[in-house]
């Protein structure tokens, strides 16, 4: 339904605060392809700085990709951010304390999108009450005239979801919707998202750093590392049989009380600086299986099993790997990885 194809984005940050300071290029996202389908939750998992939020924002058309395109129903989405797009693709933000304007009542937050998109259907109050009921804030009249600070974090996030739902979108982009919430109410919000998927057939992007919650909610998990897509698979397949060493690391590091023995990570270093990402596979400096080719060339996506892809040379078919070794591809390394991923 909504697809981001080969999305690439760099930011320029100033080195120092002077107006004369040099600007340095941060390679935030490189050639990432994500496909959202109706009635499915796709999780985008990665550590902070992996570029997950940037991908979500590109899909929401808050920021413009440097390269690649956003497709809605297979057609390129209109340029700019027209209201027709806003009516179909909505976003939920991480921090419910920041995503609601502190000076406005809940009514304002829900009424504005309705008015903008002419969806009030005559009775604003009824429309608002319906929305609040849909996110299980009942009775609605207890909430409409409250200010955000009068609500708890979970209630606020539900209001934010109600706001996103108000325009009857087909796609919901949820950027870490539960990470700022108390543990005891996270599942409630996740279950609400699952409900929306099942009952209203929404396509949902769930951006998170918590792979366990991604496994719980999502149908498909996409793992990102240092701005690149490293693995994508149906969620159980991915968590039970991780194919990429980074996914394995992520799973080993996640808290898991069921584990008989605590894993030993030793010291695996930190994600690279995106100002000057490592050559080849961006994970190779931390990878226990790093081979020679990993340092030289970025791996394309290889199919591990049906619907399960991993961008790792370990999964290359012997012939293909050999072909590259023999110099069959003579494009420069940076070019190569974009070229390959387009296939």
């Amino acid at each position: 339904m909504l697809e981001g194809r080969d999305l690439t984005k760099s930011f320029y940050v100033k080195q120092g605060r002077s107006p004369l300071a040099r600007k340095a290029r941060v390679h935030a996202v490189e050639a990432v392809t994500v496909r959202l389908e109706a009635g499915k939750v796709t999780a985008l998992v990665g550590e902070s700085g992996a570029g997950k939020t940037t991908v979500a924002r590109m899909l929401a058309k808050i920021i413009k990709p440097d390269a690649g395109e956003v497709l809605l129903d297979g057609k390129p989405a209109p340029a700019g951010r027209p209201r027709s797009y806003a009516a179909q693709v909505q976003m939920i933000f991480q921090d419910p304390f920041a995503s609601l304007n502190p000076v406005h009542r809940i009514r304002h937050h829900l009424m504005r999108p309705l008015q903008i998109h002419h969806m009030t259907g005559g009775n604003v109050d009824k429309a608002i009450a319906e929305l609040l009921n849909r996110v299980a804030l009942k009775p609605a009249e207890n909430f409409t005239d409250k200010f955000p600070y009068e609500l708890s974090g979970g209630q606020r996030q539900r209001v934010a979801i109600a706001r996103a739902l108000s325009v009857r979108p087909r796609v919901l982009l949820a950027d870490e919707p539960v990470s700022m919430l108390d543990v005891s109410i996270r599942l409630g919000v996740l279950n609400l998202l699952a409900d929306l998927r099942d009952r209203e057939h929404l396509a949902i992007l769930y951006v998170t750093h918590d792979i366990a919650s991604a496994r719980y909610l999502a149908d498909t998990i996409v793992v990102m590392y240092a701005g690149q897509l490293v693995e994508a698979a149906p969620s159980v397949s991915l968590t039970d049989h991780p194919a990429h060493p980074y996914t394995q690391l992520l799973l080993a590091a996640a808290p898991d009380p069921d584990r008989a023995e605590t894993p030993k990570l030793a010291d695996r270093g930190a994600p690279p600086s995106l100002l000057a990402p490592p050559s080849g596979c961006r994970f190779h400096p931390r990878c226990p299986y790093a081979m020679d080719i990993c340092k030289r060339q970025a791996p394309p996506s290889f199919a591990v099993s049906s619907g399960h892809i991993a961008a790792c040379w370990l999964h290359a078919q012997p012939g293909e790997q050999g072909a590259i070794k023999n110099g069959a591809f003579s494009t420069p390394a940076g070019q190569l990885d974009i070229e390959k991923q387009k296939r």
Partner: protein
Amino acid sequence: MTINSTSLTTVSPGAGPSVEPVFHRARILRLPRSPQVLVGLVIMAVFGVLAIIGRWIAPYSPNATDEKNWVQHVLVPGTGPDTGFPANYYPLPLPPSAAHWLGTTVFAQDAWSQLLASTQATLFVGLLAAAIATVLSVLIGVSAGYLGGAADEGLSLVANVFLAIPGLPLLIVIADYVPAAGSSILLVAAIIAVTTWAYTARTLRAQTLSLRNRDFVEAARVSGEGRSRIILVEVLPNLIPIVAASFLFTTLAAIGAYVVIAFLGLAGAPTSSPPGLWNWGEMLREGFANNAVRSGWWWWWAPPGLLIALLGTGLALLNFGIDEFINPRLRAAGLSRKAARKAGVSRRPKFGMTPVVLGRPTGVKRAVRPADDQAEPVLEIRGLSVDYGYGDDAVHAVVNCSLTLRRGRVLGLAGESGSGKTTLALAALRLLRAPALITAGEVLFHSKPISEDGPVGTIDLLAAGEDDLRAVRWSEIAVVLQSSLNALNPVITIGAQFDDLFRVHRPRLSAMERRARSVELFDMVGISAERLRSYPHELSGGMRQRAMIAMAIALEPQVIILDEPTTALDVVTQREIIEELIGLRDRIGFATLFITHDLSLLVELADEIDVMYAGRLMERAPAASLFRAPRLPYTHGLLHCFPPLHGPRIAMEGIPGSPPDLRDLPSGCPFNPRCRWAMPKCRQELPRMEPLNGDAREVACWLHRDGAKVPAELALPEPVPQGVGR
């Protein structure tokens, strides 16, 4: 370099998770009703009324001379014999009388009438100038901040240029070249506005810049809101407190500027043609020019000056209120003498030491179980209670909590935000800041120093003096906080922050030895020694947290309190840091109090876990028991909030309802509104922690008392010990 941090205008975004989030909810959307603000309001109201009705209550025209009272005469300076000018006389000004409440000037004009006329004009010019300046600064500041890019750079440059040019001299030069200014209120106000707008513009720009990136603006954009509506409806209302504060500040500056140019004779005299306006500066100028000060005619020159000062004080007092609204940290939250006496704290509280109520109830002594597998206790907290605020407003953040940390063990303290877990831990070291107050309990520290120095024997930390407490702090009990960026002093190098630690606690070490020890510690946590010369912001989050841990073990303490040490970090880094900590614990042998909301992490890590809810400890059990066989409904719910990484995917419930509001707790058990097994008794009576079946665990829940029927979920069998005990 753009310098735009002003303490007055820093909106704390979401206010960050500081000591107790619950406390931030107490922030209410209205001006603090402090006596200062009230006085300010009264002053401003009086001025407002005077300015409006002044014209009608003035007994005389400000220019009229009272010829009846021309009795005595004064020689005009610079005239008369020896000057070459014919002698010229003024009447002698009269002191206050019934006819002239504030006396007269040398021109026999009524000072009171002049003062009233002046008040009106001065205030009017001040407000008008401030209005123009504010509109100008809102336009420029907000558009620069919102548009960003080249527009921002251009507009900021203009503002910075105007800021760098000194205001008064510019004002003097402009006013001097525009002599017509004196007779035109608008012109005077405009000139003043031109010299005062830049500061506010810069402040507003910085604020808008930060608001622009806030999620609610982004959300409005995503919902298809237009740009102008976003600025007007979403951004501007958030700037109102700052605009208001700036407006008051600019009003004061404008009045000051007007008075000054009038005093310097640049605003036109009321008697010249075209006539200028009567204003405080003009009155002062005439008084000064006619020797009123030296001649002792105070009724002429003193009132306008005092009125300026009074008006300024009023405006400033109002501004205090707005500042405190913008930045709640400014509310003077100190323990006043009165409150101290009321709370039963006799001595003046010392800085860095949470006050403790004297004669407080102390914890109940319980028989220490002589279990052979239990190590001896190193830190015992007994019946500790902590309030925020005093008297009736007090929020009971921690109520009657007892826990025992054993030598070399990891004790987990689990709870959600606002449950009081951080408060409990910091209270033990008396590190909580005002308005915290320790109202009950004792904290016994059984010290057996690992390294050479340090006290030996049992110390009640709540009763200890300042020096005794300082000797224990860090040297025997160290603390690692959640945000390592905020926990390290940003302006000095990390090496220097190690150094001062050694200088205080290990004064015998030489500079060389201190340095060598720091290098050794950095090596232990895997950071290269040259990082000692770095400033905190130059390290990554994980590295800073390692540095904090290195600092925590620097003096080989017996206890380390870890307050959400890995919450701000990515999972991989979190895992590495925990590995590091466990390794160090095995080497040095300190006991650990590990505080976190992440129960699943604790289960892997801790020997024993205490679960906290709404300021109360509700369950304590060995980690495996707690995980496999929770007895408390809350613990059970919390464990089912963490989806597993293995097995079939099943729907999970979480816990219904919202976390408790400490200011408004339900009666009975605080968890009862969210508990699916709640009984009538749970709504009436607060359960206490009591041992369960003589077990090595305790729980505060009516379901396990008096033969109540225990739900199957809460009666799972204890796990079989695996003999892997750490």
